[in-house]
């Protein structure tokens, strides 16, 4: 019953007043900013990161995790009420969720989303608790070669799941790795690519890059096509689903949870793959498949469960291997490093309170979400209706002051503007920023593991294919890359991303 004693330790950590309070604040802020149009989880977390840097590490990470779920749930709410997904993972929720809202059934749709998410979150919490430690124990055997190959796999996966041209996405990864190297080289003390600028000696902060590319870049894009948003609020009456609704929700939630949990563990995928897969499977097996796309509650429950399950199980590679699998967990890795925690397999043994506290707090956070959202739905709706022209100057203000507060230098403000312009430019050219952010954070780590691996092998590059685990990881990367080139898969990839 080791699991129970671990969870008890986690509960002890998570249930302090401060941690519960910041978990609640995180969930609340995450949802509030997540429902604002045009702000996905990545931009939300980037915006709120500076706030958490003043907290102790455990509390900060608990709050960040709360912000993440909150912003995801906020994204689902806007998908259902205004047909605007905050992020790729909630795109499928719009299909049936918005239809339900149009028929005056926004309440049951929101409830299906909340109940599905909560159930999936509970299951995923236990999965992390069960599979985290053995996976971390296995990862303790990893040498630098294995970690390098694992990072390759993560980056390849992010490329495969990126929108648009494969070649462009690979280029973005390489560019991200290069940008990550800016600053002082840890081994030689050489200042690389700093152009003699003092402020660049520590490199460019990841918050600066994330706020620029995801926050500012997105605003510039939105300004180009400002469209009227019609809000489907024909009064949300009958929030509670009927008995019939409940009956129809059960199986889809179970299936969605299973699919989302499994796909969430895969590096690079996070929750996007899960929600798409859950919806298409549900559409095939459901008795009510004729209703799909016209407001079937199954079409909301299944992808929402999968979405949340995946969001949560994507913490497994993050917490046990230290490998972020999507931009959001990349930001978490960055935040952990800022707090002096090197994410990786040793976190469980060296900082058990942090690890288990975070896991238990995930479940508590999900509980808060459900409790919080019923009384506050009216407030979310009012926030959704804030016209964009009044919203984005506010976002800019928070980004500018937030990025300044990191190191109290105007320099970061200029860099944020630069990355905003770059982010817009690249999105115009069909290059997605997500793989770049991931690579940017992995860059220095990857170089370090490459150096160590090569040192151990005395300069023999074949070391990466001579060690079985490393070979397997690289083989998986090659397979993933090849799969995109197969016509059958690339067709589904295009369809999945068609919005």
């Amino acid at each position, binding site marked *: 019953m080791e699991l129970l004693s671990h969870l008890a330790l986690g509960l002890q950590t998570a249930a302090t007043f401060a941690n519960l309070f910041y978990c609640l604040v995180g969930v609340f802020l995450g949802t509030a900013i997540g429902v604002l149009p045009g702000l996905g989880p990545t931009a939300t977390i980037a915006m709120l990161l500076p706030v958490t840097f003043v907290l102790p590490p455990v509390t900060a990470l608990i709050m960040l995790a709360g912000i993440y779920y909150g912003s995801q749930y906020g994204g689902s709410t806007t998908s259902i009420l205004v047909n605007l997904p905050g992020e790729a993972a909630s795109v499928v929720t719009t299909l049936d969720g918005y239809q339900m809202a149009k028929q005056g059934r926004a309440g049951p749709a929101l409830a299906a989303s909340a109940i599905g998410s909560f159930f999936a979150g509970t299951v995923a919490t236990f999965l992390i608790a069960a599979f985290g430690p053995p996976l971390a124990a296995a990862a303790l055997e990893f040498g630098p070669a294995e970690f390098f190959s694992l990072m390759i796999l993560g980056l390849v996966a992010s490329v495969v799941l990126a929108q648009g041209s494969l070649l462009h996405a690979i280029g973005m990864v390489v560019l991200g790795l290069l940008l990550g190297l800016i600053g002082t080289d840890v081994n030689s003390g050489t200042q690389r*690519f700093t152009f003699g600028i003092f402020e660049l000696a520590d490199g460019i902060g990841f918050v600066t890059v994330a706020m620029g590319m995801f926050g500012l870049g997105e605003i510039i894009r939105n*300004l180009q096509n400002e469209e009227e948003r019609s809000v489907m609020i024909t009064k949300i009456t009958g929030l509670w689903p009927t008995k019939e609704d409940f009956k129809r929700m059960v199986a889809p939630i179970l299936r969605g949870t299973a699919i989302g949990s499994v796909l969430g563990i895969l590096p690079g995928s996070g929750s996007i793959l899960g929600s798409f897969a859950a919806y298409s499977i549900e559409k095939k097996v459901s008795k009510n498949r004729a209703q799909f796309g016209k407001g079937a509650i199954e079409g909301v429950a299944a992808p929402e469960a999968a979405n949340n399950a995946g969001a949560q199980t994507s913490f497994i590679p993050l917490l046990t291997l230290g490998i972020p699998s999507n931009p959001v967990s990349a930001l978490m890795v960055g935040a952990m490093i800022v707090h002096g925690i090197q994410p990786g397999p040793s976190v469980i043994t060296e900082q058990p309170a942090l690890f288990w506290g975070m896991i238990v707090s995930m479940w508590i956070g999900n509980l808060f979400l459900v409790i919080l959202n019923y009384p506050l739905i009216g407030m979310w709706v009012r926030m959704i209706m804030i016209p964009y022209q*009044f919203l984005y100057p506010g976002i800019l203000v928070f980004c*500018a002051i937030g990025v300044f507060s990191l190191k109290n230098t105007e320099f970061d403000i200029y860099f944020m503007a630069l990355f905003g312009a770059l982010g817009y430019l690249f999105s115009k050219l069909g290059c997605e920023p997500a793989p770049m952010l991931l690579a940017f954070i992995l860059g220095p780590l990857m170089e370090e593991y*490459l150096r160590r691996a090569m040192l151990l092998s005395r300069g023999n590059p074949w070391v990466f294919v001579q060690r079985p685990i490393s070979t397997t990881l690289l083989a998986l990367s090659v397979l993933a890359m090849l799969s995109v080139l197969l016509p059958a898969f690339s067709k589904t990839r295009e369809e999945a991303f068609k919005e």
Partner: protein
Amino acid sequence: MTRNARDFWTGLLYIFFGSSAILIARDYSMGTANKMGPAYFPTILGGLLLVIGVIALIRSFVIPGSPIGAFGFKGLVLVTGSVVAFGFVVRGLGLAIALPLLIIVSAYGSTRFRWRPTLIMAAGLTIFCVLVFLKGLGIPLPVIGPWLGG
């Protein structure tokens, strides 16, 4: 002429970044595969980016693609410009001037810009930020900067 503007410009950008990385890294020591110097990894990455850029460039003349579409210059200039301007004046003039400047200039980027609500928003948001960030979180920025004798 190029048949795919996206590939063409992406290729050029990647070639620029890749070759710059290689050229700049020449100033650092290369080391050996066994003991990699600070130039080793950046040179590999720069080379890789250069190759990807060249492939994209060549492909742009062979495989046709969709056009880039209109470029939102107004939004780009006003959003980045207002943020940079904020950085320039925030210490000198203080938040009381820098924040309204940022808000009004960026808000002008919207097609639905109107003076009255924007000014009200600028005033409200400035007061809010001064209270929360300066008084609450203690961020070291002046309300009225030294350029104005504050």
